[in-house]
């Protein structure tokens, strides 16, 4: 899983770059503030929001309790409607299935609508190997694809890009200079991508939800690209994480009420599409073939044990906007796919703690993520549990384990505590010169150690 494995140094290195960039700090502040305020207003104007969150939590957990049953019911219902279902255990199986489909159809061009799972499985690279060019059609993702970058936010993938940068990227495609003004940029992208929609032999989307009872998939967008991608090309492939299922369309109504409100503060997104099978007899458009790839890719690892609640996540992005760490580092520090508190919990669970061990520490444990989660996942508690696992599995470096053992020995005894504070006061002049104190005091003054905690001096 090259897309998900994170070297321990990645977080620190990328975060340092972002912290030193004043423009990105402003962009992050403004966009996360706006999204957070919009969500708070939308929740406040929704009667019974707390009951609805609780209901949504229960619906999601009931699905996770019987995930195999739901996958089987969804598969049977969609096949009865003439759709194809493929269960992929790994990222490679999923991307090979889609690549083989493109190869069989001789597809030169595939139009894609924003999909986190397709990033997770490295789909674009797999398609390139069989000669299919995959073009992202979500405006933000299209901009990032032109720049050769990855999304940094679930609902606002290109928040770190300026209009000037976007103008340069779009001008390079059309060979004509596009001024850095919103309307001109939008029109240029609309014109460039319209051809993609009309020419693509295969349309690829994710799936916000699946409905087991009816075999339907639900897609939400504001731009309309998911509707175009799933309506115009002769083949539509939707890739869906196996945990995205809901029992009935009545449950879908509950989750839809929370998804857009939590993501962008809208009551509902502009386009909410519920697709049940391919084009039917007599219809003049819609795909002739519909394939749904259900992806495991490590998700069954979470089914047993205390991290199963993470499977309830509906990828709204609300936890990113309130996280004091995400708001400073942005998404790239976490991974090329998932970020923020949900990413910090999910990534180590999908790939193993060893492969993403810096991420459980990317949190102040303030609990803002948990309070913002529409499906009530205790995100900060799960992060703390992951840290516990790091210690238990001895993934932490030896000096860290020795340090904390000594610290806990000293501070569980009054004399030990007094001795360390006395030593700290003596060592005060050195604190800013070496070790963590030096790093910390690079941009600010070290506070003085107090004689006694209560004295504050």
């Amino acid at each position: 899983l090259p897309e998900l494995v994170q070297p321990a140094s990645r977080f620190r290195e990328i975060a340092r770059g972002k912290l030193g960039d004043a423009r990105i700090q402003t962009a992050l502040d403004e966009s996360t503030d706006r999204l957070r305020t919009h969500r708070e207003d939308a929740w406040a104007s929704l009667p019974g929001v707390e009951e609805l969150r609780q209901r949504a939590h229960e619906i999601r957990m009931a699905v996770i309790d019987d995930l195999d049953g739901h996958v089987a019911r969804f598969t049977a219902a969609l096949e009865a409607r003439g759709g194809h279902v493929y269960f992929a255990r790994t990222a490679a199986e999923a991307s090979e299935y889609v690549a083989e489909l493109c190869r069989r159809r001789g597809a030169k061009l595939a139009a894609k609508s924003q999909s986190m799972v397709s990033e997770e499985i490295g789909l674009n690279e797999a398609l390139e190997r069989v000669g299919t060019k995959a073009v992202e059609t979500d405006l933000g993702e299209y901009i990032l694809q032109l720049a050769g970058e990855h999304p940094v936010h679930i609902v606002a993938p290109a928040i770190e890009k300026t209009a000037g940068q976007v103008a340069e990227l779009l001008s390079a495609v059309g060979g004509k200079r596009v001024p850095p003004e919103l309307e001109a940029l939008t029109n240029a992208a609309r014109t460039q991508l319209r051809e993609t929609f009309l020419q693509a032999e295969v349309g690829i989307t994710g799936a916000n939800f699946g409905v087991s009872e009816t075999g339907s998939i639900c897609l939400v967008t504001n731009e309309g690209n998911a509707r175009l991608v799933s309506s115009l090309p002769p083949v539509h492939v939707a890739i869906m994480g196996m945990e995205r299922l809901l029992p009935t369309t009545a449950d879908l109504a509950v989750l839809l009420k929370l998804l857009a409100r939590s993501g962008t503060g809208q009551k509902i997104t502009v386009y909410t599409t519920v697709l049940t099978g391919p084009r039917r007899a007599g219809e003049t458009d819609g795909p002739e073939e519909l394939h749904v790839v259900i992806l495991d890719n490590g998700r069954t690892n979470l089914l047993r044990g205390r991290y199963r609640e993470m499977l309830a996540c509906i990828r709204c992005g609300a936890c990113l906007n309130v996280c004091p760490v995400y708001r400073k580092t942005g998404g790239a520090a976490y991974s090329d796919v998932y970020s923020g508190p949900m990413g910090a919990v999910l990534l180590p669970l999908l790939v193993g703690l060893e492969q993403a061990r810096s991420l459980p520490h990317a949190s102040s444990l303030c609990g803002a993520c948990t309070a913002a989660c529409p499906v009530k996942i205790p995100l900060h508690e799960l992060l703390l549990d992951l840290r516990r696992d790091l210690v238990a599995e001895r993934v932490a470096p030896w000096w860290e384990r020795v340090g904390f053992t000594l610290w806990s020995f000293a501070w569980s005894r009054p004399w030990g505590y007094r001795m360390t504070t006395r030593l700290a006061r003596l060592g005060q002049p050195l604190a800013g010169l070496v070790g963590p104190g030096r790093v910390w005091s690079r941009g600010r003054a070290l506070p003085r150690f107090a004689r006694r905690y209560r004295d504050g001096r």
Partner: protein
Amino acid sequence: MTLVEEFVVNAEAVGCHIHRGKAPELPDAGLSEALYGLADTGSVVLAASPAEPRANSLLPDVHVTLLREDRILPGLDELFAALGADLPSALAIVTGPSRSADIEQKLAVGVHGPREVHVVLLPPG
């Protein structure tokens, strides 16, 4: 407030143009007939069928949809209850014109779908 009044307020809030009884004369507009309307969100619900191609409400710059006043439901709960398990191949809940905030978080209208959505309210029956 009646369902129709609530629908009009919410549909106008998301940028729809509302007409009563008669469709506006707009050249090159795509025409559709809505299966339902949702008062709570100001949405129109379109169901694909041989008579209702998906492209009509997707490709043209302007989308005009006809909605009978007695087809307006309170919201999503009532919509899925009314539809039951017999769903069309494609059900689209459309709430205003296509939009994006992907460039500097500023609202742009008409990215991929129609730039204008006109809802024509027709009397019951």
